[in-house]
């Protein structure tokens, strides 16, 4: 047993397997879509961390949020920044590649390698653009199920996600209850509210108002609607933060001494938002933004069940659910999570719920929130115990790493 924690961390960090790739599905395995259509050629880009155990019982699927991607715990290939969820995924973290086989794939409609509107349409040889079919959260989940099948996994130990990722996690429980052992749903909702749709419409209109959008046909014309996409991101970014967080971070602080008496970024908050918009366009596709926001707007789990959300979960009674919300999240506020909990209770499912006190707004689920970390760690550890997962099954017992049992 190594007594030096620093030394141990270094050894552990290097000790787990990481893989990434793209799976290609041809016309023999078409992706059926909620819109009625189908995609005969689908590529799914994904990353994995850790090793699938012999029983194939330790796989966790992470579902990413609106503008997230599969690079959960490894550096982003475009920005070079660390993975978006390193607080939660890594050795000694709640999702631990030493005990779990962690999978994350880019959603259908995305722009990080999975088929989306910027992919080549096999029929025309040109990017799909607006010819790409409108997709839904359930379509994203169906594509993930194809990936899980291809990886040889019958049943996932956990499906976990925040925001749009939480919607996918819920959809997994509704559509594949027999294939999911537990679900963690963070800062999400079972439907998009009028306000959610309104903010997304604002973003879409900003993109479509950009003359460089060209009816979605911008790539063949060698232009990009960067202004529109940047504005969409700026507006959305405000909804990810709480008023307190913005005030604490920026207040009325100025960029330089005195006002410009013009329309430069006088205030630090303006400069910050402009930076967020500009950085976003480097890594995201405008048409993907249209399609993915549309998918969340169309999301209403109860709609297919006569408006009774509980009925969506009737077959998921044996799934363990952990639902978490944040006090200052006004995008998907706590009552949305409580509605999910109420439905799960009504369905007789095994649900836990915690509202976490945080002033960081919706983005809290991406940040270092110890209460969230502990709750998810405790939930997964006890679920792992019930499923018979132990670190000895992973073949890393010789490393003697500490962790939750």
């Amino acid at each position, binding site marked *: 047993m190594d007594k030096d924690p620093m030394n141990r961390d270094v050894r552990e960090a290097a000790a787990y397997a990481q893989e990434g790739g793209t799976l290609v599905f041809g016309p023999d395995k078409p992706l059926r879509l909620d819109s009625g259509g189908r995609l005969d050629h689908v590529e799914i880009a994904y990353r994995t961390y850790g090793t699938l155990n012999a029983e194939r019982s330790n796989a966790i699927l992470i579902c990413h949020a609106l503008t997230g991607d599969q690079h959960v715990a490894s550096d982003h290939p475009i920005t070079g920044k660390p993975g978006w969820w390193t607080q939660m995924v890594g050795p000694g973290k709640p999702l631990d590649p030493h005990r779990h086989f962690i999978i994350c794939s880019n959603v259908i409609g995305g722009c990080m390698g999975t088929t989306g509107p910027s992919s080549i349409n096999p029929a025309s040889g040109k990017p799909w653009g607006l010819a790409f079919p409108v997709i839904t959260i359930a379509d994203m989940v169906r594509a993930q199920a194809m990936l899980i099948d291809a990886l040889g996994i019958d049943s996932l130990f956990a499906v976990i996600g925040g925001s749009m990722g939480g919607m996918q996690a819920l959809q997994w429980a509704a559509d594949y209850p027999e294939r999911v052992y537990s679900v963690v749903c963070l800062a999400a909702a079972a439907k998009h509210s009028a306000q959610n749709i309104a903010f997304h419409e604002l973003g879409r209109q900003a993109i479509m108002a950009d003359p460089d959008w060209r009816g979605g046909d911008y790539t063949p014309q060698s232009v990009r609607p960067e202004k529109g996409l940047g504005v969409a991101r700026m507006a959305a970014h405000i909804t990810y933060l709480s008023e307190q967080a913005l005030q604490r971070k920026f207040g009325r602080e100025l960029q330089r001494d005195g006002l410009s008496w013009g329309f430069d970024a006088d205030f630090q908050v303006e400069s910050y938002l402009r930076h967020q918009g500009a950085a976003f366009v480097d890594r995201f596709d405008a048409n993907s933004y249209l399609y993915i926001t549309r998918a969340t707007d169309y999301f209403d789990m109860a709609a297919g069940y006569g408006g009774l959300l509980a009925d969506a979960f009737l077959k998921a009674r044996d799934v363990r659910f952990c639902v978490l919300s944040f006090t200052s999240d006004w995008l998907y506020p706590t009552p949305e999570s409580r509605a999910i909990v109420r439905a799960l209770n009504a369905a007789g499912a095994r649900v*836990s719920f915690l509202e976490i006190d945080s002033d960081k707004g919706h983005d809290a689920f991406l940040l270092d929130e110890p209460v969230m970390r502990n709750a998810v760690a405790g939930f997964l550890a006890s679920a792992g*115990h019930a499923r018979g997962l132990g670190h000895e099954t992973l073949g890393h017992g010789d490393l003697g790493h500490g962790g939750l049992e």
Partner: protein
Amino acid sequence: MSPAEAARREDFRAILGMVRPGARVLDIGCGEGLLLEMLARENGVVGRGLELSPANVSLCLARGLAVVQGDADHDLADFPNQSFDYAVLTQTLQAVRRPREVLAELLRIGERAIVSLPNFAHWKMRWELLTCGRMPMTRALPRAWWETDNIHLCTLRDFTILCDELGLKIESSMALAEGQAARPIDPQRAIENWRAESALFLLSRK
């Protein structure tokens, strides 16, 4: 262990004897999940909890318990009709804003309710009030009037009258006292209203 906590644990032992094996139980105000854990281990109970404190909910999650954050006054409405065999509320009814509504809710959610509460007519209470003229502070009610969470204290007699008004049947009653095994009582008898420091009831609808 605080005196209130000790009283709770005395309740737990008596509750274990009331709950039939394999039942579905909702523990309202489940704290760190001790009762739910005992019920699962000893009675094979399928348990759920409702708990106000986020830290306690976190502890319950780590124990593998299914617990929802919320309080008895606001969040019982989230549970469907008759979804549990027992709804349990230990030493809490006197601290809720609307005890009458909460009591009715327990028997909407559960086929039976198990409720424990301190008896304000216990002789020590009467004696302290009579001799000192001040709000009594006892083992069951250890805090001063200005800092106590107990805003709706009642006597055994008060409670049986309320049950009657709500059409609830008291199936069994126990007197609880420090360091003693729970003692079956007839809550209608005036002597028990003097003697029981705290009482535990098994309720159903008439």
